């Protein structure tokens, strides 16, 4: 830390845990005035917890935060704002039905009147700020709801400037904007920097970080691995710090032989731009992994294959036959199953019993003139409870009283009576403990040995490497690499997932 740039914000031994799980451990960090400081790490490394502590959302369990050498204690987000720390969250916090000016003054509204807001005054102040940001073309009287995401970010930045922020935290600012817009953002960041504002830039897009950051701190599993200065930025080194040296082959992999082509996707393009020109084939008995960062278009691809998303181009062949009418009902009939990422939201029905959840799909088939065939359904539930070793006291138990791992087994069980040919599996082991993970891998192995083909999206690289046969890496909606799982490494996957497009 040079004398020219004393730390504007520093953290000393900051730790935080949630329900006994340590999310951040003894973090020591200094942020220099007028610098762009990137925080890097994989999903779950502790980045968002760190910024939530700095922005007053979470109170750290221990440790000291100080601003320009003075110790501070944030109890609520407003405290951080008062200390001139402004956070721009990924889901921007704006009011769509209010005007640009009204949104910009939100944190500083009291400056423009005690009871009555002086519109003249705040419009003038807002115009000044927008001029400072060289965004005069943005009309302060327009509704924010009519603006593009990039322009909304300008509004957020203006909100920070009008509150004379010293530190601006940006959480994945480019995750939902186009390339040309991210160029505009980059210039904005540089001008903020020149004005002496410190930027905390959270991202997992390495190339962006290399372009704009002066310093980068790498987090992994809640620990601070290293803080690197610009001159020492190296892709390989940073990736290996992000990934770490983890045990890889603790996952059981059953060897299977592949059969015929089960699924073929040709030139599939999302109507809403989530992914483009996706082509691949999948043989029965094969496990195809899809790697990439959050937001790369992986889940969107699975949704499109299952008929939940509209595509503008391309087609899907199942067992050699082209699927025409594309909706989930059709997909299920043709032998597709989809185990979604968020089982609480889209996988299971919380107020129903274990049995009813296992039969979520079957109920649509096992009925006579709309009356459920109770005996048959009970038998099915019993069968899959045993087959997948679902641990519950009874089938009548509420699904929510089961552990995460057992809930996930139910989410799998509900499909099996349909004899699926292809199972789409989005984050199969999210939020379940290590023992349950191993069981889930065993179940996956059993399924492929019966000739089922599996597409598995996972953000956990070790899992991806050891469970799958082949890995497609997606980046910004496109497949950028196809790797053989046995011959690749976490580093190689990360490099493809984060690299700048050539």
């Amino acid at each position, binding site marked *: 830390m040079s004398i020219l740039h004393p730390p504007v914000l520093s953290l000393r031994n900051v730790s935080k845990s949630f329900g006994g799980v340590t999310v951040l451990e003894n973090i020591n960090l200094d942020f220099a005035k007028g610098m762009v400081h990137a925080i890097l790490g994989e999903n779950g490394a502790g980045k968002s917890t760190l910024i939530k502590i700095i922005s007053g959302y979470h109170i750290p369990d221990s440790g000291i935060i100080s601003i320009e050498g003075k110790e501070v204690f944030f109890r*609520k*987000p*407003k405290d951080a*704002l008062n200390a001139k720390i402004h*956070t721009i969250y990924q889901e921007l*916090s*704006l*009011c*769509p*039905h*209010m005007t640009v000016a*009204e*949104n910009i003054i*939100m*944190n500083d*509204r*009291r400056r423009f*009147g*005690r*009871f*009555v*807001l002086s*519109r003249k005054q705040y419009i003038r102040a807002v115009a000044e700020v927008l001029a400072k940001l060289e965004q005069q*073309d943005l009309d302060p009287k327009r509704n924010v709801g009519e603006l593009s995401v990039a322009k909304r970010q300008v509004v957020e930045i203006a909100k920070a400037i009008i509150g004379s922020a010293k530190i601006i935290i940006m959480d994945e600012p480019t995750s939902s904007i186009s390339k040309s817009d991210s160029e505009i953002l980059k210039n904005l960041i540089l001008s903020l920097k020149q004005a002496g504002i410190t930027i905390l830039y959270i991202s997992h897009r390495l190339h962006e970080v290399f372009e704009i950051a002066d310093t980068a701190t790498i987090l992994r599993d809640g620990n601070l691995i290293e803080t690197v200065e610009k001159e020492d930025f190296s892709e390989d080194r940073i990736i290996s710090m992000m990934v770490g040296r983890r045990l890889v082959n603790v996952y059981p992999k059953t060897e299977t032989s592949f059969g015929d082509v089960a699924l073929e996707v040709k030139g599939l393009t999302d109507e809403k731009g989530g992914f483009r020109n996706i082509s691949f084939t999948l043989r029965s008995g094969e496990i195809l992994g899809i790697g990439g960062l959050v937001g790369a278009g992986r889940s969107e691809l699975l949704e499109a294959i299952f008929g939940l998303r509209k595509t503008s181009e391309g087609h899907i062949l199942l067992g050699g036959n082209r699927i025409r009418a594309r909706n989930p009902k059709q997909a299920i009939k043709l032998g597709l199953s989809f185990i979604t990422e968020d089982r609480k939201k889209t996988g299971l029905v919380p107020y129903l019993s274990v049995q009813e959840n296992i039969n979520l799909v079957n109920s649509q088939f096992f009925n006579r003139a709309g009356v459920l065939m109770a005996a048959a359904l009970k038998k099915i539930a019993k069968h899959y409870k045993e087959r997948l070793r679902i641990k519950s006291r009874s089938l009548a138990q509420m699904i929510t009283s089961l552990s995460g791992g057992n809930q996930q087994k139910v989410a799998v069980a509900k499909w099996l009576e349909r004899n699926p040919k292809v199972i789409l599996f989005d984050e199969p082991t999210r939020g379940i403990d290590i023992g349950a993970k191993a069981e889930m891998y065993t179940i996956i192995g059993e399924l492929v040995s019966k000739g089922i083909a599996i597409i598995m999206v996972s953000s956990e690289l070790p899992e991806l490497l050891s469970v799958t046969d082949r890995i497609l890496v997606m980046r910004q909606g496109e497949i950028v690499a196809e790797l053989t799982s046995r011959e690749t490494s976490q580093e190689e996957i990360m490099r493809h997932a984060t690299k700048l497009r050539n």
Partner: protein
Amino acid sequence: MDQTLTAKKTDVVAILWNLLINLRSLIILVLLGVLFTILSPYFLLARNFANIGMQIASVAIGAFGMTFVITTGGIDLSVGSILALTSVFTGWFISTYHWNLWATIAAILLIGMLMGSVNGAGVVYLKIEPLLMTLATMFIYRGIGLRLTGGRPVPINSPLFKTIFAGGVVIGIPSPVLITLVLLIFCWFLLSKTIFGYNVRAVGGNIEAARVAGINFSLTKLITYSFMGLMAAAAGFIVSGRLAHGIPTIGETFALDCVAAVILGGTALAGGRGTILGTIVGAMIMGVLNNGMTLLGSQYYTELIVKGIVICVAVVIDNVTRRR
């Protein structure tokens, strides 16, 4: 230069479009007006306009209050019950206890406000869904009014009360209309020009942003319900002034009429977007519909059906213009 010119051109289109969106309630109103003018010779008479004004006064006042509640993302079903119960109290205070009229008015407004505050407290502190909280108090307040009176009307023996809230005319304007106009200006100012109105829109638009900005969203919501209660009591004066009685059974459809006026005025049920000027137009649409169809000699039953259809059409237009 070229750039600014093209920019201007698109601006003009945008402005016209915005005007169309913002005025769509007004356009519906004008179309209805034209329709009834063609169909009935009585519609365009000044006397008839005064009539419409008198008819919509109570719903408009209630709908002003409802605009604040709905803009925060809430709703209040209990306002009809508040209106009825406060009208009963009005009768007692004046006729049975011989209170001073002004003291009665102040006390009744306060009581209405307290009843609204109960709703607000339930929503904010007990975290009961607004729909459920106010459904519960809708029954409770109605039940209290009926128990206290045995279901019988309470006379309000005050000519002055009747003059102020129903019969009076000031510079040619009937007093209920005048009261509505005053409240219209007050509420418009409150929602669009003050910090409180700002907070209401911010809380409904994005509660997280409001929280970060240090807006006391609990208090903001609580106040909207209190204000709603006060406005319901005020609307009650107009109703009981006309009937010269406090009646425990009136206002059964009042809450939903208010909600309908607010929605017709373009306020979003999901919160965040609300305007008082829209609400008065919404109330006028309901009033004109009611009046025009009565002039044409149709039954009340038919009016209900048409009212429902107009609400559907307005919401569809709203959705379509917003989607673009």
